[in-house]
């Protein structure tokens, strides 16, 4: 298996992009990425999108996107694992390169979410839950995470303030990210007092509905050298795991098993422990999610995610910064794009080009992308070499 480097990243400003279609978003991110890498060709493409069909009516992105990118006849796949579709697309591109099937592989993540109204978007997102035994009853994604939040608060004593602090911290980081959808600061009081979506979660506990895309280009390390990429950012670990789709089928629903397994696998592949990681981009689709992800990955023991967040451990200047980009909360959450964008942020930080939100001396990054209520997760370890 070849060592795989990220030789290019492509982002764009996310938000309610009324004038851009799903093909516009993909092509813009991909072109930014190809330009960043300075390559003259690509060999294959993986597109991550959770539900382009329900959000836009458009399936078969694997045909449309290469064509609009000027790459007709390119082998392309579209992968789906709910909100982990982006991370999975990167994994797919990684396998292409590592196996030698492709020399240069492009991974694009996309979601165009504002072509439907709120009720339809909520419905589309809920298709990531068990349709017959969860969504049938009218549960929503905020609802599933709200149930986790309530159970976490009851079991571990996690407080409303601790949950709110996740949003406060990520929005603070987001103010320094020019690509963020909501680059404004919020206070704990604002989070707690914003409108209830699914008790105890409020609007500001939830990541937004976002249009966006992101892209990364992968190539063998020797190609990256040849292209003169410096500093060299290498994917040294990939972990991917799944868990039951239904919350009720987990032996301990407060333990995100897919996240734990994915993180262990990625760290083992990289020969690292969680303590070796300098910062992480994690899947804070809801404030409680970031806390539970920290605990599942062993950043803190179970039940300590809330207190650690309130203590500043995960702030930009903390001992374990999480979501310097602003996270899904502030940067936005175009579901299929999120997992790819996490790697874009990791590379920017490792390159030292993250501007006002730059973490000093960052050499090892972890990205964690999650599908559904934790039914799937993809973790990447990226290092400067």
């Amino acid at each position, binding site marked *: 298996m070849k060592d795989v480097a990220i030789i290019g990243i492509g982002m764009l400003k996310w938000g309610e992009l009324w004038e851009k279609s799903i093909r516009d978003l993909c092509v813009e991110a991909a072109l930014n990425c190809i330009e960043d890498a300075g390559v003259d060709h690509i060999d294959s493409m993986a597109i991550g999108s959770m539900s382009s069909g329900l959000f836009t009516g458009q399936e078969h992105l694997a045909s449309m996107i290469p064509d609009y990118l000027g790459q007709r006849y390119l082998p392309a796949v579209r992968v789906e694992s709910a909100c982990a579709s982006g991370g999975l697309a990167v994994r797919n591109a990684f396998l292409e390169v590592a196996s030698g099937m492709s020399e240069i592989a492009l991974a694009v993540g996309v979601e165009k979410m504002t072509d439907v109204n709120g*009720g339809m978007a909520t419905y589309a997102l809920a298709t990531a839950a068990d349709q017959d035994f969860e969504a049938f009853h*009218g549960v929503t994604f*905020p609802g599933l995470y709200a149930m986790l939040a309530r159970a976490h608060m009851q079991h571990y004593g996690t407080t409303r303030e601790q949950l709110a602090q996740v949003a406060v911290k990520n929005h603070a980081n987001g103010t320094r990210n020019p690509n963020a959808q909501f680059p404004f600061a919020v206070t704990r009081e604002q989070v707690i007092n914003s409108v209830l*979506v*699914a008790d105890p979660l409020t609007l500001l506990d939830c990541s937004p509905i976002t249009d966006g895309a992101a892209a990364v280009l992968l190539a063998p390390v020797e190609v990256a050298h040849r292209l003169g990429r410096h500093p060299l950012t290498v994917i040294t670990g990939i972990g991917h795991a799944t868990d039951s789709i239904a919350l009720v089928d987990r032996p301990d*629903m407060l333990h995100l098993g897919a996240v734990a397994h994915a993180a262990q696998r990625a760290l083992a592949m990289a020969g690292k422990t969680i303590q070796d990681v300098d910062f992480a981009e994690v899947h804070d689709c809801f404030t409680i999610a970031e806390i539970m992800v920290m605990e599942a990955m062993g950043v803190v023991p179970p039940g300590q995610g809330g207190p650690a967040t309130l203590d500043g451990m995960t702030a930009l200047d903390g001992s374990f910064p999480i979501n310097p980009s602003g996270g899904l909360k502030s940067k936005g959450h175009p579901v299929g794009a999120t997992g790819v964008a996490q790697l874009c942020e990791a590379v920017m930080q490792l390159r030292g080009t993250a501007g006002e939100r730059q973490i000093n001396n960052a050499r090892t990054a972890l990205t964690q992308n999650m599908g559904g209520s934790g039914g799937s997760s993809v973790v990447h370890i990226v290092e400067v070499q």
Partner: protein
Amino acid sequence: MQVPKFWREIPRYYRLEAGKCDQCGKITFPSRLVCPECGSREHSKVHLSGRGTLKTFTIIRIPPDGFGDQAPYAIGIVQMDEGVGVMAQITDCDVDALSIGDTMITKFRRVREEGKTGIIMYAYKFVPDVGV
């Protein structure tokens, strides 16, 4: 057209039909071909009693399409007396008075409709056990 999708699950929705592993006794709802505990493929049909304990819950205030006129509504996870977890709406309750640990029973209720002219989908819902 959601008729076949709904109709197929009637034994589960109407009667809480579950599976019990013949090897290890694990109860699954819905039943599975492969036991998640021991991998056995031999299982029998059982019916859940409908009684259990509330493990967690929320109140859906921003509902998905199809539930607009029901919101706000409570939805929760109940650990059934048989040991298996079941998620459903909690109806006939004061949502502000719910707490984890409450005893729940199931009632047969309307869950959703396929529009104004389509089929009515019935299933189990939880209600706090107040003796009626």
